[in-house]
């Protein structure tokens, strides 16, 4: 990774610290600054309220010319998070063709929070969950809350 990229990550970390979105905690390791650990509280107005989710944010070598990679370490029932041990996300800003180098990590974090409040079933990674979200919201809410109790306490 180039020094420019490192400099940028450091600077972004500073920005995140001074202006951390509410309900979010960032852990940063000086030795390995390309991997951030994020603790995210489920937003109050969402079905994920009361849950604490651990996320990993990885900066690729080409950062900021390629987007950071986000994965949920805590299991979550969500149309935009893959339901496997990777817990990956791939939409909006996080797609290589959408990402622009001036985009910032803060924007990514805000995007994740927004998605917890309002999932985007039209750009889903889990079609069956997306379908349930659209067709049978009650059932979706129930399972999502259930998973929060089971995995995210």
């Amino acid at each position, binding site marked *: 990774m180039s020094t*420019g*990229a490192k*400099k*940028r990550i450091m*600077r972004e970390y500073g920005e995140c610290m001074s202006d951390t979105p509410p309900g979010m905690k960032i852990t940063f390791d000086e030795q390995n600054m390309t991997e951030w650990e994020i603790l995210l509280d489920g937003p109050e107005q969402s079905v994920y309220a009361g849950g604490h989710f651990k996320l990993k944010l990885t900066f690729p070598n*080409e950062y*900021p*010319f*390629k987007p950071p990679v986000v994965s949920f370490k805590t299991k979550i029932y969500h149309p935009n998070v893959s339901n496997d041990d990777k817990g990956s996300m791939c939409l909006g800003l996080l797609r*290589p*063709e959408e990402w*622009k*180098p*001036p*985009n910032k990590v803060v924007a990514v974090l805000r995007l994740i929070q927004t998605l917890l409040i309002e999932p985007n079933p039209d750009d889903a990674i889990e079609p069956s969950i997306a379908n349930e979200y659209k067709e049978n919201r009650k059932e979706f809410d129930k399972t999502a809350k259930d998973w929060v109790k089971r995995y995210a306490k």
Partner: protein
Amino acid sequence: MTLKRASDDIDRSEPAKKPTPDTTLHTALPATPLTTASANMDSDDEFNSSQVSDDEFMADQDSDVSIEDDSDFDIDQDDVGFESQDKDIKPTKQTYEVDFIVYSPDQIQGHQDKQVDEVSNILGQPPESTAILLRHERWNKERLIDHYMEKQEETLESAGLGETSTTNPPRLEHVKGFVCDICCEDGPDLDTFAMRCGHRFCVDCYKQYLYTKIKDEGEAARIRCPGDGCNRIVDHKSLDLLVSSDLQARYHELLMRTYVDDKENLRWCPAPNCVYAIQCGVRDKDLIRTVPTVRCDCSHFFCFGCSLNDHQPAPCALVRKWLKKCEDDSETANWISANTKECPKCHSTIEKNGGCNHMTCRKCRNEFCWMCMGVWSEHGTSWYNCNRFEEKSGHDARDAQARSRQSLERYLHYYNRFANHEQSAKLDKDIYLKTEKKMTQLQNTTGMSWIEVQFLDAASQALQQCRQTLKWTYAFAYYLARNNLTEIFEENQKDLEMAVENLSEMFEKPIDLLQGLKVEMMDKTSYCNKRRVILLNDTADNLQKGNWEFNVTL
């Protein structure tokens, strides 16, 4: 059964007139439609990939075939009946062949330039902008002209050309108080760049951004400004300024790719390192009625519909199904057939990997005997003699099993033949390569001319091509529902297969005998090729007319 045996007796009197592998084949004009089924057409696959000769690249630039005027290439000669094919195969179009044109990179570039010039004159825009506009509209010039005439500003805006860029060429600038939003660098000596949209970044970041887009993501025609949310397309002149020369080549290559990719009637030859593109009028919707095999100037035969290797007579849809099935099934199916049985009750497949014959199905809890498939409760305690062969329950269970195995057997029947021809083609080729070496020696020792030993080459190519066809006849047959036509088809298949096996056998003869077999081999070669043409004409003709019934929907 009228289609078979049109040419059993081969004209033995004129072996000299048999198509000899002509050296002119490789200097053939690339721009000429290759619509002949010459008896010594090169066969498919890797077999010929080494034969690309340099002179092919000396593409005839004068033969300026306009890409739009493919109607000029009506090779509308009457089909030759089978009777008249006894002499030799004429350069006429067979039912199974399609019209197509091969283009070299220069010709493709030429077509693009011509279109850009034309449209540039109409729109009154400089060529660079016109090129962007055309690429933006996916090379649909009518649509572009319509849009432009109606809403000029909007069209320019959506293609990323906001204001006309005739004045003020792009340039690097030093800007006071500038901080690059990507790398956070600042300083009064920093080279910076921005397009007309005003999104300014330091030149290193801009370059790195373009590098990532071109090199890693393979983008060319639609690279957007790096500015957040900006959709302006990075134009040609800006790229020239920012992109290093080694990347320029890649950039132009990618630009050319978009031209072929955007055109429905153009397709790249999928052979490794091949630079040609093929134009063919067959559309996606035609693919259930025709199998458009084309032959690139690099000698690669492929299907214009799906880019896979030549798979006549099977239509693309069947090929996809078959390959998927083989991928899923072939290995496993063989193993299942050899090692498993099905539960007589729920038909789950069960492997017995040792232990006693008292089976309990995991799924439905049915208890049965592995030996006779009968219900276990009837066995009592003395089953080890398992003398229960005539018992009804076991009998029924075996019947049901037999039926379900039958479909597997049927698949394996076709699959094994399909796979066998694939394998044999490889072996034939190996033998040929060995033989060729020896023939070169023979040439040296006996003083035979190069032309005289070429019959082996012709035979080998015929074998490759016929086996390729035979291979796919088995996939085709697997999906074929029986009707009157299937018998003719199977006869044709049988005739071709026999001819191929005969030729293949001769091929394996020791080298010192080969010379004596020359005439016979030449006859067989031409016979094989004829049988192949007959089979393909029959299948193509009936496919066109919709006469085949398949046991799946295409």
